[in-house]
């Protein structure tokens, strides 16, 4: 099987379809540090990190693989996206306060490590309950794609995949190792199951269907000893799994396609 070619509209010839699920999930929202709040929709960059963990790519090494024109990801929620506030206790990590410095000697290097005898702090994390997402993924990076497919087929992974925090181990299930997306086009509104990039103003309202929006990181690049986001996407989606966003494919900048029994948007 060859690596999928992604056309200039952003539609891949074929893709991997998989489902990721966990009992809990937490995707910290940009701009929230004092509070631990989560996105409802797993950000595209988090998906990149999750897949890179399965393949075993080192930190900051895989941004190009998931770059703008060489990757296509569709994210479809398959569970009700609801959250609860969950208190968790943790050990402080402030190097100037909560660490001790007793290991090592004057001649060797001093090792700083956490003082685990210090009192734990309670932090309340907003946590997704039983999140399930279907991912349709194509990348043009041949080695990555081949390895990812092999891992998914064998049910293996290099690092343990999780949904946000390492505590929230993910269950990963390959649905189809070669889905073939069929383009959906036109000016007629269709119901899209996946998260739709764009704004609410394109969306055709449906009675009794609530649409919400989130802005999250989509594409990153490594630069100057770190990384930065080069694209944020506004996502429109419905928090209940059996409803979708009604929008005309022609109103979107990204390709709409049906993959399996879902109508998705690749971005």
């Amino acid at each position, binding site marked *: 099987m060859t690596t999928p070619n992604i056309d200039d509209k952003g539609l891949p010839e074929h893709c991997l379809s998989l489902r990721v699920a966990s009992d809990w999930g937490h995707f910290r929202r*940009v*701009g*929230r*540090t*004092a*509070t631990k*709040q989560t996105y409802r929709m797993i950000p595209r960059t988090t998906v990149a990190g999750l897949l890179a963990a399965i393949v075993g790519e080192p930190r900051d090494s895989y941004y190009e693989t998931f770059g703008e024109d060489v990757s296509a990801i569709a994210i479809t929620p398959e569970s009700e996206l609801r959250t609860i*506030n969950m*208190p968790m206790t*943790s050990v*402080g*990590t*402030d*190097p100037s*306060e*909560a660490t001790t410095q007793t290991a090592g000697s004057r001649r060797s290097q001093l090792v700083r490590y956490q003082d685990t005898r210090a009192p734990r*702090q309670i*932090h*309340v994390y*907003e946590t997704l309950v039983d999140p399930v997402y279907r991912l349709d993924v194509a990348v043009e990076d041949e080695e990555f794609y081949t390895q990812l497919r092999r891992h998914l087929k064998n049910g293996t992974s290099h690092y343990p995949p999780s949904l946000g925090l390492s505590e929230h181990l993910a269950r990963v299930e390959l649905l189809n190792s070669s889905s073939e997306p069929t383009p959906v086009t036109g000016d007629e509104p269709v119901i899209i199951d996946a998260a739709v990039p764009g*704004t*609410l*103003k394109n969306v055709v309202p449906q009675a009794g269907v*609530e649409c*919400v*929006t*989130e*802005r999250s990181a989509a594409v990153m690049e490594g630069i*100057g000893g*770190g*990384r*930065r*986001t*080069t*694209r*944020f996407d*506004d996502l429109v989606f419905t928090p209940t799994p059996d409803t979708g966003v009604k929008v005309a494919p022609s109103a979107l900048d990204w390709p709409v396609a049906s993959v399996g029994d879902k109508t998705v948007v690749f971005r």
Partner: protein
Amino acid sequence: MSNPGVEDFQQAVDKYWHGQPVTSLEDLMTFYGVLAVAEDDSGLFRTPAELSAYVDDGRLVTIHMDLTSDPAEYTDLTVDTLRDDDLARLGYAAKTSGRGADYSFTQAGSKTGNKPEKLKNTHINRLRLWCNYDAVRGVVDSDEAHPDGWVLNRLGTIFKKDGKVLEEIKDDLTDLLQGSEPTVLTVGMTIDLSDLSEHSGENGVETFYPGTLDVMDAAMRRYLTANLTDANLDRRTSSGEATGYVTGEEDRVVGTPKTGPFEIFSIKHPDVQPGLRQDQSWRNYPVSEQTGQLMSQAKSLLEECVFRTSGVETYAIPYFAGEVTGLKAQTLWNAVQSLDPEENNDRPPMARVTFDIEEADNPAIRALSDELRFYYLVSPISDDTHIVAETPSASTYWVNEIADGLVSTVYESLSATAYGGLGVSTNWDLLELPDDRDQARRIAFYKIVGHEFTNATFRRRDDAEDDFRRVVDQQLLEGRPVDASVLLGEFVDRLGDEHGEDGVPWQVPAMQLVQLETLSRAGLLDGLSGGATPRDQSMTQDLPELTDLTKIREHRLESFLDRPMFDSGKDNTERRAACLSGVLIGQISWHQEHERNMGQPLDTRVQADKLTLDTLRKTVQTALDNARVYAADGEGHNVLYPEVVDRLLEAYEENPTEWSISRDDMRFAVALGTAFGRRAMPQAFDLHESDSESTDEDASEATA
């Protein structure tokens, strides 16, 4: 300044807004910054209006420099009257708080005038200080240096401490000036155009001023926004070039922006943020310099949108869905800046803004009410590290539905005492509304967005940080139905909170029933088969005969129980039986207290939140025994309150200990029944038509 007009807002929107609808809190904070700067058309950084007092009356001192060579040369010093036309090139940005030089290189003296000596000793030195501020120097020597940073270097050769040329300038100044007048100091810089990184037109030399040279403008902005890059960073800064989270455009971004009154973003506490690299925060939260400045301007307007009660602060920040226009911006500004939450602390802003817009004189503004949304955010007062509930686009639709439901419940069931209504009761949150329906709806709206609706019936809580009532408020605001089991659990806990020596006031279960029914009417109650709304008796039943107390009681009881939640079906029949048990307990207790002067009537010994099926069985047995014994004391009947006893025995298909109904459900039904039973006799008396003919007969029954 007078109120800005639509055009002022349109201008500000065109200039500073990214053009998309509001989709995030950051968008909203930025948008409120746009509203704040619309008041003043001079832009986000510059403040030429501060110089209006100087124009025509004050003097403009210009120090002329030749920057075509290095080191720069001081050429001349001129003094003119300050005219309106000068303002643009001065690029003035006042520093209104704290010490130090104005943000712009152009420096202003006192409005009331400065003597030459003072200008020489203070204001000339400010030019020198300005050139050497770290933030200003950032355009020369930082990772994000400006290509024309050399201008600063050349100025620095003149404006240095104890510099010879600087002394020369000071001397010229004191020679030329006389008297005390408001004075503005600026610098004219002659520059070889080919030395500039970007310039339009031919090569040659040209004279620039702080307001016309990009690098000077950039330096001013760095100085002004320094706090956006160095807050909580000990002598370091965090800024870089990246795609802005709000704008989506690549720009200079600042790493420590102010996030309005919410303080949801901070790098202050590395202990709770594993892996935080403070000076790299711009990578994670890239906010353009302009956005950061707008966000910090938004704070005071956002502070108007708060409502503080029961340990939490609830922000309901209004905006309009869809495209941002000048009219929408002006409407919001008008609505928000008059809120004054300190003055109006019993009127939640969400309600006031809604009414303001729905009832505006201008039809174009009224038409906007469909698009009105609120960013709703609840956090504990004085705890900036926690958000209890947050919803980005709350509309008033569900609040209105609930308000309608509450009004209907109060008008149609609670007040309809002839049809089993428990009756209004003053000073109880959900048991009283004004007679005027519009006014009642408005009060209901206030109660719902002001948390009284849930506070009235839910378990009391001290810990605002984890206040589940606020989560339920949010759920209702979003139109997500609440499960009855959640409500019943809360109700029973609250009954426990309220239990005192005299049992529970009847108003508490009454309010809980009102809430069940209100949510039932609004379509926001799940899991109570059929719902809590009584059938419309007035249409299908005749009025009771108001001359016979037993018949009145019977009719009221029948109407009260005529709700789907007491219909057939296993849970419903058990709930009905539990409720009837309560009614008997309540009526017997009333009898004990009022007819027999007993100190501890039966119901004071039944605590709803601790009630078990076995205790219920025993208590009902006692009540039945009492009903027989008390009846034997009197005359006529073989049991007291036959209308209840008959129905109760009929409803008991099974021994209560065999019931499968949930414990909370049973407990609430008993408490509700008890409240009804306690009220049965007094309400029957109230309804009773005391015409002279029947008085004696009724009086004898009343004491039976």
